[in-house]
C-alpha cells in the first residue's frame, strides 16, 4: 500500500461488502468540499458459485461508473489508480461483514471486570462476540471446553488479572483453551489466532501453554489496573489479525486486500469509528443505532468513551419473533393506535421471519411493523445501557453526605439528557415512508431528554466513511455532514412529572424568515414546528416548575435549534410511564400524537 497525502486525495471509491449486497460509493472533491456523487450496489459474491468477493466489488463499482459517467475500471476490469485525466480514483477503500463478519470469543477472569473489558475491546473493533468465558461464569471446566470447541471463532481475546495480579485464574483459562484445541472458522489448516491481553506476569506461562497450539499474539494488558482500561492495543491487534487471518482465508479477500489502499475494516468497527470521529470532532455525545434483520447494533460516545453493543436476537426479520417473545404482545401493541386480532398479528410476525424481504403492503402492517421496531430498539438500548458503564471493581471515595445514597460502581454512562444526537440506520428507519415516522420511532424507543438532534443514515454509507476517516478524516466528516445523514430535526423534551394538560414549557422560536413562533407546551402533548433541513432557529425555552431541559429544573435555555425534515418536535410527555394504562385513553393519546406529528395519514388513524 502506498503512502497517501490527504491533500492529494480528490477522488475516492469506497465499498462495503455486506453478506448479501456490496455497496460502492464515489466521493469527489469539488472546490473545497468533498461530496458524495453516486452510490451503486451489486450482489456479494463471496459464496459459491463465485467464491470471489472482488467480483461483487467490481460489479458495484461498475454501477457507480455507469451512474457517474466517470471511468473507474480498465479493460481488464481493474480499478484505475491514481485518477488522471478524468478517469480512475485516487484511493479505493473497503469494509467487510461478508461471511459473518468477525466472530470472536473473549475470556477473562471475572465476568464483570476483565472479561467485560475484553468484550468491550472486541465489540469496539467490530466483532460479534460469540461467548464470554470467565472464571465465575458458573460453567464447569468441561462445559467451557465443549463450548470453545463447538463455537469455532475467528479468534480469541484472552485477558485477566491486573498487572501483578492473579496468575492462576488466567493460566487456568489458557489451559482450558489449550485443552479445547479450537480450530478457526475459516482455513482449517491454520492455527487459531489468540490475543493475550492480560496480566503481564503470566505471559511466559501463557506462551508455554498456548504458544505451540495456537497463533499467539501478546499485547499490553487490557486492564493494567482495575481503575483503567487500555483497549487500544487489543483493538489494533484485532484489526491486524482480522486482515491477516480472517480476511486472508475468505474467498477472494486476498485479492481485495491487494486492491485497497487502507486496511479492510469490519463493517461495525468502521461505523463505530465514524461515530467516534464525529463525536470527537464536534465534541458531542452521540448514540447511533443500526437495526438490521437479525441484529441491532448500538454505538454510543459518552464522556469521550466509545461503546458498541450487538443485540444478536433483536432484528426486524430473522429475529422478529424473538423481539415479539422478549417484549411481549402488550408492549408491542401499546404503540398501535387501534385494536388488532392477536392471531393475525402472530401470523404476520412469523411471515416476516420466514420471508425476511417482505415489506408492509397495508397501512396497518406498517404501523404494526414500526411498533415492533420501537420495541426492538428499546430492548437493544436497555442492553446497551447495561453494558456502557463505568468500570467495576474500583475503590470508591465517599463523604458522609453519601450516607443514604451510596451509588454502586458500574453505573451506566449513557445519559439521555447530555446526548446531543441520535442517529438511526437500518431499513425500518431509513426507508420509513415518512421521515417523521423514523423520528417518532427514535423518540419512543430512546426517549431523548432535553434537546436532541435526530438523524437517519439514508443509504447506510457510515461504514465506508468510517474506513475513510482512517485515511482522510476531513473528507469523511464533510461527506458525513452533507450527504450521509438526513436530518430529521430536533426533539425538545422537558423531563419531569406533571398533571395531564398542565403547562410545562413556554417556547419562542425566531425562525429564519424573521417570524416568531411562540406558545405553550402542555404535559402529555406533542407538537411539531416546521423548520427545514439546514435552517436554524433561535430558541428561548422556559421550563415550568419542576421541569428540566438540561440546565436544571426551571432553568431557561437560549439556544440555536437545527431544523430537519420533521422540523422541531416538542415532546411534552414527561419521561416516565407516559402511555396511559386505560386502553381507550391510550389509543386517543396515540392518535393525538401521531396526528400532531403527521406520522400517518388521517384516514389511517380514523379507522
Amino acid at each position: 500500500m502506498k503512502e497517501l497525502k490527504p491533500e492529494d486525495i480528490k477522488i475516492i471509491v469506497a465499498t462495503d461488502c455486506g453478506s448479501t449486497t456490496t455497496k460502492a460509493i464515489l466521493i469527489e472533491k469539488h472546490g473545497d468540499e468533498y461530496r458524495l456523487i453516486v452510490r451503486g450496489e451489486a450482489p456479494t459474491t463471496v459464496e459459491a458459485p463465485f467464491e470471489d468477493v472482488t467480483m461483487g466489488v467490481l460489479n458495484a463499482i461498475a454501477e457507480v461508473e455507469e451512474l457517474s459517467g466517470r471511468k473507474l475500471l480498465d479493460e481488464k476490469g481493474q480499478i484505475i489508480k491514481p485518477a488522471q485525466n478524468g478517469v480512475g480514483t485516487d484511493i479505493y477503500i473497503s469494509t467487510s461483514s461478508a461471511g459473518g463478519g468477525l466472530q470472536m470469543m473473549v475470556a477473562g477472569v471475572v465476568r464483570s471486570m476483565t472479561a467485560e473489558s475484553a468484550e468491550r475491546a472486541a465489540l469496539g473493533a467490530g466483532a460479534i462476540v460469540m461467548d464470554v468465558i470467565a472464571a465465575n461464569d458458573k460453567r464447569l471446566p468441561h462445559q467451557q471446553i465443549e463450548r470453545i470447541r463447538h463455537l469455532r471463532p475467528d479468534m480469541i481475546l484472552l485477558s485477566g488479572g491486573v498487572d501483578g495480579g492473579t496468575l492462576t485464574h488466567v493460566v487456568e483459562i489458557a489451559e482450558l483453551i489449550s485443552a479445547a484445541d479450537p480450530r478457526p472458522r475459516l482455513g482449517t489448516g491454520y492455527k487459531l489466532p489468540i490475543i493475550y491481553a492480560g496480566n503481564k506476569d503470566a505471559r511466559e506461562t501463557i506462551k508455554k501453554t498456548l504458544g505451540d497450539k495456537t497463533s499467539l499474539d501478546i499485547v499490553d494488558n487490557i486492564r493494567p489496573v482495575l481503575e483503567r482500561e487500555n483497549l487500544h492495543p487489543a483493538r489494533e491487534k484485532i484489526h491486524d489479525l482480522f486482515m491477516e487471518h480472517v480476511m486472508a482465508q475468505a474467498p477472494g479477500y486476498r485479492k481485495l486486500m491487494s486492491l485497497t489502499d487502507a486496511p479492510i475494516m469490519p463493517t461495525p468497527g468502521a461505523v463505530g469509528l465514524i461515530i467516534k470521529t464525529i463525536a470527537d470532532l464536534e465534541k458531542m455525545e452521540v448514540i447511533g443505532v443500526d437495526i438490521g434483520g437479525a441484529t441491532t447494533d448500538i454505538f454510543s460516545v459518552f464522556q469521550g468513551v466509545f461503546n458498541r453493543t450487538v443485540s444478536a436476537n433483536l432484528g426486524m426479520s430473522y429475529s422478529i419473533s424473538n423481539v415479539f417473545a422478549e417484549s411481549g404482545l402488550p408492549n408491542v401493541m401499546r404503540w398501535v393506535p387501534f385494536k388488532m386480532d392477536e392471531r393475525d398479528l402472530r401470523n404476520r410476525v412469523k411471515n416476516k421471519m420466514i420471508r425476511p424481504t417482505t415489506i408492509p403492503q397495508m397501512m396497518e402492517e406498517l404501523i404494526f411493523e414500526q411498533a415492533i421496531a420501537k420495541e426492538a430498539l428499546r430492548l437493544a438500548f436497555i442492553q446497551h445501557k447495561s453494558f456502557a458503564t463505568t468500570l467495576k471493581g474500583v475503590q470508591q471515595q465517599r463523604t458522609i453526605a453519601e450516607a443514604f445514597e451510596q451509588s454502586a460502581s458500574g453505573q451506566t454512562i449513557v445519559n439521555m439528557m447530555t446526548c446531543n444526537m441520535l442517529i438511526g440506520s437500518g431499513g425500518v428507519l431509513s426507508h420509513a415512508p415518512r421521515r417523521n415516522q423514523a423520528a417518532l420511532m427514535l423518540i419512543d424507543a430512546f426517549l431523548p431528554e432535553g434537546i436532541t438532534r435526530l438523524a437517519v443514515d439514508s443509504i447506510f454509507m457510515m461504514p465506508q466513511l468510517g474506513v475513510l476517516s482512517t485515511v482522510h478524516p476531513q473528507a469523511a466528516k464533510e461527506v458525513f455532514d452533507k450527504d450521509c445523514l438526513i436530518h430529521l430535526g430536533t426533539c425538545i423534551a422537558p423531563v419531569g412529572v406533571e398533571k395531564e394538560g398542565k403547562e410545562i414549557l413556554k417556547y419562542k422560536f425566531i425562525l429564519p424568515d424573521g417570524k416568531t413562533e411562540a406558545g405553550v407546551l402542555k404535559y402529555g402533548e406533542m407538537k411539531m414546528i416546521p423548520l427545514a433541513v439546514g435552517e436554524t432557529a433561535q430558541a428561548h425555552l422556559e421550563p415550568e416548575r419542576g421541569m428540566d431541559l438540561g440546565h436544571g429544573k426551571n432553568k431557561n435555555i437560549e439556544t440555536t435549534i437545527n431544523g430537519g425534515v420533521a422540523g422541531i418536535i416538542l415532546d411534552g410527555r414527561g419521561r416516565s410511564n407516559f402511555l396511559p394504562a386505560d386502553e381507550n385513553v391510550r389509543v386517543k393519546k396515540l392518535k393525538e400524537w401521531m396526528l400532531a406529528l403527521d406520522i400517518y395519514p388521517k384516514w389511517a388513524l380514523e379507522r
Partner: protein
Amino acid sequence: MPFCQKLPGRYIQTNFVWFISFFILSIFPALVFSRDTPQPPTQVQAFDTPSDAGKSITVQWGKSSDDGEGLNNVVLYEVLRSTSPEGEYTKVGDSPRGTTEYVDNSAKDKIPYYYKIRALSKTSFSDSPPGAAVVSSPQWFKKERLNALIVVLVLSLGIIYFIQKASKGKEMFVRKIAAIEAVDEAVGRATEMGKKVYFIPGIYDMDSMQTVAAVTILGHVAKRVAEYEAKLEVPNCYALVMVACRETVKQAYLNAGRPDSYSDDMIYYITQDQFGYTAAVSGLFVREKPAAIFLQGHFFAESLVLAETGNSVGAIQIAGTAQPTQLPFFVAACDYTLIGEELFAASAYLSKNPKLLGSLKGQDLGKLLMMIAIILGSILESLGILHLAKWFTYQ
C-alpha cells in the same frame, strides 16, 4: 393597761388568770353546742376493677354534703372493708376530700367484700351505709390496651400475608442494598488482583444480634469467594464466633461445590482484647494489602482505625453495623455501608427465604403505618383534634 408597762408582779398574775378565764368561757359554747360531725358519704358502690389481673376492687361513692359545701369540714375519706355486712370493718386506705373513688389493691380474689366510706372532720366522723358485696377476679382482656392489640394484629396479619404471598412464589420487591450488591465486585477485585478477602465479624460474642447477622453475611461472602476461587481470611476475637464462622464458611464452600478449597486455618482466633485485636488486624491489613475488606457486626472505637487502615491499603471496604456512633466513620472511610437495620435486612435479601422476605415486607408495612399515624397525629394535634393521639395513649 398595757402589758408592756412595768407593773408589780401580783397585779400581772391577777390579770393573766382573768384573761385565760375569759378566753375559755368565750369559746366554750362553740365547743359544746355546735354540729361538727360531717354528713356521711352516699351511694357507695364497689365493683371488680375492670380489665385487670384481679385482686383489685374499685369503690366509688357520692361526696358528703359537707365536702366543699355545708359545713365544709370533711378533711378525708377512709375506705373501710369487711367480709360481712355487719362485721368488723377495717380501714384499707384513704382518699382526700373531694374524691369519690378508691381502688383497693389489697383484696383477695373470690372473697365477697363490703365497703363503707367514712367521712372525717377534724374532730368527728360519720360512716356511710355499706355497699353491696363485691368479689374481685382477673379478666382476660385489658380494654385500655386494645389499641396495642389492634396494632399488633395489623402488623402480624401484614407479616403473615406477605409470608403467604412470598411462599406462593410472588416476586417480592426488596430495594437494592448497594453494599450487598457490591459483594461480587469486592470479591471480583480480590480475584483479579490475586489478593485476599478479609472478613471482620465485629468485636462482640455470639450473644449480639449484630454478630449473628454478620455471620449470615459471611456465609454469602464465603460462597462468592469459593465460586471465584479467591482467598478468604476471618480473624476473630471470640472463640465461639470463630467456631460459628468456621461452620458457616465450611457450609458455604460446600454449597459452592468447592469443599476442597476450605481450610480451618482461614478462620482463626486472635485475642479478646479490643485493641490487641485491632492492632493485630490492622497489621494484617498493612502487610497483606487485601483487595476487599468486610467489616460487619458490633464495633466500637476500633471501627475508624480498621476502616482507615483498610482504606489506606486500597481495598474495597463493605461495612455494616447497627451502632449509630460508629456509622459516620464507616460511611466516610468505606466504599459501602449497611446502615442500622440494613444489616439485619441483608439476611432476608441474601437468602430470598419467603419467611424472611415476608416478615421484612410486613415490618415495612408496619413502619409505613406508623409514619402515617405520626404525620397524621401531628397534623391533628396541631389542629386541636386529639382523638388519634388519645387512641394511641395508654389509658
